């Protein structure tokens, strides 16, 4: 078997348009699912060496939606891909993220690490061991440069599409004998506050670099027929998303908001394995400072903590979580890691954005540099759980309390990602059907 690697240019692309389309139309070819989207990055006239990509999502921040079509049939799709990518970049063992393996394998944002005492530019912080700043650190991006003025100069990365299109982890072959009109469509988001870690130098706007799709393919007919035999029926998981808005909370410190109920129609009549909930900040809440320039952690793509959140999920009329649901921050995070695997984070990143009751110096505001106060609002407060049920009615109930910190109380974009199961069935006449199970 000989595998060829091809570079495919987009058939539709312009810097000013958000749409990018790749067509995979070679006759009698089987594409492997190990597709890589290369040359991802942005450039802007005023960007300098000090600029960086979103510190949690890296260059994944620019992929808003991604869909693999065959004609008009959706084979695999992920909307809010940058929010999902932001989660996947921290959804791993923290020690593992330090290793070279991930620097090369995922030369994008997928090597985000949590560290103490790193990435510090404030000597006061360095000298104050009470405040080890937990950084959202991306070694590769720091080593390899910044988004700059031109496409040629900008640091760029790549992503293995199996990270975003989960279906491709199981649909390992894409024969054009069956999928006759393969097309990869990407909607880019090049908003500076989403893609960049600091918007100071983005006044003149930023544009995407021209991406390239790298695919491995097989042309040998005998091998292709063997591959076909192995994929008569393929069960695969897909990540779907339902978006909503979580209202701001007001009133006095500790006032609980009215419980918001979200009916997730998107998951009706599907087998839902797991849910992941990310309450992403909006507006100026994505920034650390005033005037708003430095993005806080993952910014609009990260999950900012909800103070004293109460979470309950109702599946087919029954509570999924016992008792009153999840009512405590560590319990919420524990349930999430049990369902989705470990998350590289720090206490400051998910415990409601608090600084903690500490030693005398810590409690003295004059000894707390502004930068430290601000950087406590990192954005890794994910909520998640297992559902493992055929769903005819799925609801999420969420409430939280008012804090003394305005940005914690603001409106959030609520992304509810669900892992659903599908099956691809291929008939003898090479027609196929994809359905939910």
């Amino acid at each position, binding site marked *: 078997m000989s595998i060829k690697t091809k570079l495919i240019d987009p058939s539709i692309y312009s810097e000013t348009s958000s749409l990018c389309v790749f067509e995979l139309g070679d006759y009698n070819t089987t594409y492997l699912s190990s597709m890589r989207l290369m040359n991802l990055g942005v450039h802007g006239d005023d960007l300098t060496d000090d600029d960086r990509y979103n510190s949690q999502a890296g260059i994944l921040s620019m992929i808003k939606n991604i869909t693999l079509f065959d004609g008009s049939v959706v084979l695999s799709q992920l909307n809010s891909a940058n929010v999902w990518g932001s989660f996947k970049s921290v959804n791993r*063992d*923290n*020690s593992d993220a*330090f290793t070279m393996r991930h620097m090369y394998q995922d030369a994008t944002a997928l090597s985000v*690490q*949590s*560290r*103490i005492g790193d990435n510090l530019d404030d000597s006061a912080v360095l000298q104050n*061991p*009470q405040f*080890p700043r*937990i950084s959202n650190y991306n070694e590769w991006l720091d080593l390899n440069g910044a988004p700059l003025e031109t496409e040629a100069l900008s640091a760029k990365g790549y992503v293995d599409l199996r990270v975003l299109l989960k279906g491709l982890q199981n649909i390992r072959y894409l024969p054009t004998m069956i999928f006759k009109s393969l097309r990869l469509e990407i909607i880019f988001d090049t908003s500076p506050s989403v893609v960049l870690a600091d918007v100071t130098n983005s006044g003149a706007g930023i544009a995407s670099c021209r991406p390239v799709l790298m695919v491995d393919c097989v042309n040998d007919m005998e091998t292709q027929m063997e591959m076909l035999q192995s994929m008569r029926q393929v069960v695969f998981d897909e990540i779907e998303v339902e978006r909503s808005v979580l209202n701001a909370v007001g009133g006095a*410190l*500790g006032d609980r908001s009215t419980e918001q109920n979200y009916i997730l129609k998107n998951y009706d009549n599907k087998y839902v394995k797991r849910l992941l909930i990310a309450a992403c900040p909006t507006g100026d809440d994505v920034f650390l400072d005033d005037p708003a320039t430095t993005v806080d952690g993952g910014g609009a793509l990260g999950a900012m903590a909800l103070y*004293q959140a109460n979470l309950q999920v109702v*599946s087919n009329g*029954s509570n*999924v*979580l*016992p*008792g009153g649901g999840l009512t*405590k*921050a*560590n*319990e919420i*995070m*524990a*349930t*999430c*890691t*049990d369902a989705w695997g*470990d*998350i*590289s*984070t*720090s*206490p400051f990143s*998910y*415990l*409601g954005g*608090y*600084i*903690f*009751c*500490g*030693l*005398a110096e*810590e*409690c003295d*505001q004059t000894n*707390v540099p502004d930068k430290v*106060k601000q950087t406590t609002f990192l954005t*890794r407060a994910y909520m998640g*759980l*297992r*559902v*493992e*049920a055929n769903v005819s009615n799925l609801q999420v109930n969420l409430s939280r309390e008012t804090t*003394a*910190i305005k940005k914690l109380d603001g409106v959030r974009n609520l992304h509810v990602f669900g892992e659903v199961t599908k099956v691809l069935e291929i008939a003898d006449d090479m027609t196929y059907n994809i359905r939910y199970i």
Partner: protein
Amino acid sequence: MSNYTYSETIPDNFNPNGYTSFDNVDFMLSFPNRKLINSSIRICGTVVLKQGAAVVADEFIFIDQDIGSNAFFSDITTSLSNVGMIESISEYPRLVKTRRIASKSYTDYLKADKLVELSSPTSMMSSSVAKGYTMNGVGPSIGPMDFSFKPLISLNRMASASRAPTMSFRKSGAVRISVRLARNLAVLFGPSVDATSSYTLTDLKVTYATVPDDGTDEPITMENVTSIKTTIQSTSANIAAQVPAICRSMTCSALVQDHEFSPVYNNVGCENVPDMSRLQFLFNDSTNKLVTYQINSQSEILSRFVESVDRSGHSSLSPWHQCRSTNFGFGLDFGQFIDLRNQTIQVQLTTGVTSTAPMIVFLYFNGIIQM
């Protein structure tokens, strides 16, 4: 019926005012027609640290950074109503500490599964978090901090031929998990700790997950631990132990006797055994042949210790730690399962320990049981 069910149970001896040192707390897990999922049991609660009657705020009071909330539970006993007692771990916090230093480095504590236990990379951070929430770092605590940890018990350490081991209620009957809370000075340490320093746990519960019983039962193997505590007070010491278990390794740590339950010293500290120049293990292997391991170098002592817990070599042992008399241990991976039920295992040490500064040695035998 849902395929996957989250469940929780509150203590049989529920106390709305919370639990403090030496309290016994019993949890009964009942899941008829269902199977318990491996590694799904968590103990959850909230903690309030107090100095006298006041909630701790600025005081220098710490809990161990590596084990977090595990420190509150000194003994854990697990019983199945159809089988009987399957495990009784005394000195549980030290067991967790010993295993953590031999298998985790500080980067491992910047992960959610450790942070939710109140473990963290620095003692300062663990202490701050355990003291509760405040806003903007000022003023007293506005609420206690919660914790959630997976106890290192057999039911969280099941293995079977399938990828996801489960234990049916038919086979086990109701599960009883009994815990005894550690004394205050076994948990808290630091310059501000005194006789009035205390902790209170509230909202204690056990959470677990089950799936429907499909009527099949496959053999389950569970890892369990047998612990022994002894004292050495001379340069040449011989520890002989009879362990009612089949074991694959033993792991040991030590503490200067005067440091036990001391307000200043960490009660789960794994301190250096001074001038340990020879370490020898004697036991019969599976063919009843006497095996003697003699170790004479410090580096080998430490590497054998790490291997007795985890073969990855990833650990918190470093020259920095050795210089500060922290994160020291010794042990041996037997390389096979040894039946220690009908023999005595001996550990012989040549050290600088004297009768003026005796050390407590904690031995943990890592074994298996089958159901």
